[in-house]
């Protein structure tokens, strides 16, 4: 029996029930969003004093070597995420896709589990693993190739970014693998079978059948990885805690660490907002390009 309710779309009641959501969105999203735009035109001392300076914050960023370093480091990390992390995740997903379900479940859990503990924990853990002379990584390298016992991963500017990338691989490879594995399991097996009957080898099947079939997931993971990379913060801060996440010669500095430094340590919320907008524009541009390229390929 269909029960007819009174006229519930009219009157104040719907607005009343929507009010908490609208109020929270207005306070925690709309207001900060608008305020972040306004703040970029001010020099501030925390939340109290501000002086209008026009576009000076953007001019400062354009000339600030530290910001350029942060942007460069973050871009390097983003490239490494896409070029190293995702192929590795895909490879693991392909390997697991072949195993039986029990093995698949076990390894899926094992590879995903680093993600359960969070970036701060992983950062602290790896800062111990990278310890010169006594750290597990240095000892293992020394045992394998007779070199590296005293290598200072977190004090040598040239090794800091590789150390961050290595740590992030351990953290994120399993996470992205789960996406790819789910996508692989939804690929139409008859298409792959047909390609094989037509004489395609494993690589050709993957490249021409499997990968195009899961392209939407791949695009999603690539975009999310790039966005995540540009938001990198906790991991270097925990890994390079002795230098507040900056690393020697700013070698571990990311744009969000820079943002934190100028906005909350130097109290310049205006400059912090400007950094935030620059990052937002970069992420938006990359995402648009990514989607456009994918659409062109599809066409």
């Amino acid at each position: 029996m269909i029960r007819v309710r009174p006229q519930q779309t009219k009157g104040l009641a719907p607005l009343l029930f929507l009010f908490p959501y609208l109020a929270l969105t207005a306070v925690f999203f709309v207001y900060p969003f608008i305020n972040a735009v306004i703040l970029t035109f001010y020099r501030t001392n925390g939340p109290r004093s501000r002086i209008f300076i026009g576009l000076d914050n953007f001019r400062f960023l354009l000339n600030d070597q530290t910001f350029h370093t942060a942007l460069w480091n973050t871009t390097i990390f983003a490239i490494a995420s896409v070029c190293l992390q995702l192929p590795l995740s895909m490879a693991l997903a392909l390997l697991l896709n072949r195993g039986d379900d029990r093995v698949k479940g076990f390894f899926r859990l094992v590879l995903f589990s680093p993600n359960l503990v969070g970036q701060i924990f992983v950062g602290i853990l790896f800062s111990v693993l990278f310890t010169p002379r006594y750290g597990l990584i240095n000892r293992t390298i020394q045992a394998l190739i007779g070199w590296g016992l005293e290598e200072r991963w977190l004090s040598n500017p040239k090794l800091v970014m590789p150390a961050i990338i290595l740590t992030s691989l351990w953290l994120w490879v399993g996470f992205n693998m789960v996406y790819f594995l789910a996508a692989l399991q939804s690929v139409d097996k008859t298409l792959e079978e047909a390609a094989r009957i037509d004489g395609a080898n494993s690589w050709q099947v993957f490249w021409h059948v499997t990968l195009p079939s899961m392209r939407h997931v791949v695009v999603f993971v690539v975009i999310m990885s790039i966005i995540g990379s540009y938001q990198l913060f906790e991991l270097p801060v925990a890994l390079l805690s002795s230098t507040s996440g900056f690393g020697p010669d700013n070698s571990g500095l990311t744009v969000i660490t820079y943002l934190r430094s100028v906005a909350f340590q130097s109290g310049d919320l205006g400059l912090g907002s400007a950094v935030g907008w620059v990052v937002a524009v970069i992420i938006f541009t990359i995402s648009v390009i990514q989607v456009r390229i994918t659409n062109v390929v599809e066409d």
Partner: protein
Amino acid sequence: MIACLRLQVGSPPRQSKMIDKFPYGKAPFWLFVMAIVSSVLLVALNRSASERPDLILVTFTAAHYDAYRHAIPRFEREHHVKVDIELTHWGSLQSRLQNAILANTDVPDLVEMLEGSLGFFTRGPTVDVGLIDLTEKIRAEGIDKRVVASRFSLWTTQGRNYGIPHDVHPIMLAYRRDLIEQLGIDVRELDTWDKFVEVGRRVSKDKDGDGVIDQYMIDLPYSGNWALIALMLQRGGQLFDAKGNVAFDSEETAQVFDWYLHQTRSKDKIATDCGWAQPQMKAMADGLALFFITPDWRSKAYETDMPHLAGKMALMPMPAWTKGGRRTSVWGGTGLVITKRTKHPELAWELAKFLYFDKQELGQRYKRTNIIPPFKEAWNLPEFSEPNPFYSNQRIGLMYAELAPQTPPTYSAAVDGTARANLDQAYSRVAEYYKAQGDTGLMDKIRFELKKSADHVRELAERDQVFHRQESP
């Protein structure tokens, strides 16, 4: 039983009828109920919350927290007041306190701050400074004459004093006495860094022939960091001058950079980086390094973390840069400030004096922390001359206290953190140069990088001046 359940199922309770009658469906009904219940709970919990104590003190070190917890009941009894003490992490305390001050929300009455942070709280326009100016009180009560003079510099800006110092933190070198004696080294002869390096080159060696050096003279961080600053201060360099101007691009700092590079990165280096906490403890226990830069607070950490080295350790004054020169430096510092929003400024001042200058408390606190208070009268207390079994029965309280008046002053500025980071970056760039080019043109490169970093910090400091310029008539 089953019949009973059936009966219950068959006749729905009154509440479900009420839900059905609610005109907008079940989900809105429960949302409505949750809103009512949470509102009632909010009001009830707010009413039952205890009243604010007369004073709230926040600290960021567990050792201070424990010491104050023991001391405060006496203050409460004597003044018939209630004082709460809270422990929090410094990183979060600094930014949240400043934002709370600037946003005019509730803040603690008294706060312990870390060295270098005063500039953070006194930046921007004068009206934004949320700390009480204690200059007149300190002078009127003669406290400035009873405390180690150099320690007030940390809590002074533009000639105004906003805090009182908790400690002196003079530095000595802790060493493995047992190993040093086996090596036949007389530490009394190590009175200059030149002699120290000379001995260091002899004892830093690969003992088991595996190609890896396994005994170094001293533990120094590879990236410079705190040790570079401590050595710079000992040599007469400064991050900032007394007026808060950036001052680390000095010849003293350049000389320290040069020395530090050679001792940590050259072929005949005498130092290794033992790291922090557990790795350092392991290195100390293994004898990987023989000497360790040890301010008073760190000497207690060794005692606590490595009881198995009791009797094998000892302390000596730092070697001087020149014969007869300063035998100590300083690392760290805590001070107590009173916020402007306190309703009881006089009571807060009394508590500050009680915690920092009450002799009855200071003796016991020294025993718990090994920290030398800047209040000179306390050094005559019997606790300071007790032999310390961990350090081979040396009277380390007296040793540190004797060095305390020699500690160099350290000044604060709004860009303190930035200056430290840029000093490290300059060192890092110089180290890369040294690795590639060796000594050729090294001093010029050091001076160039120091100036470049200092100018960058000056540029950032200048941004803060925009508020002061607007204040000026």
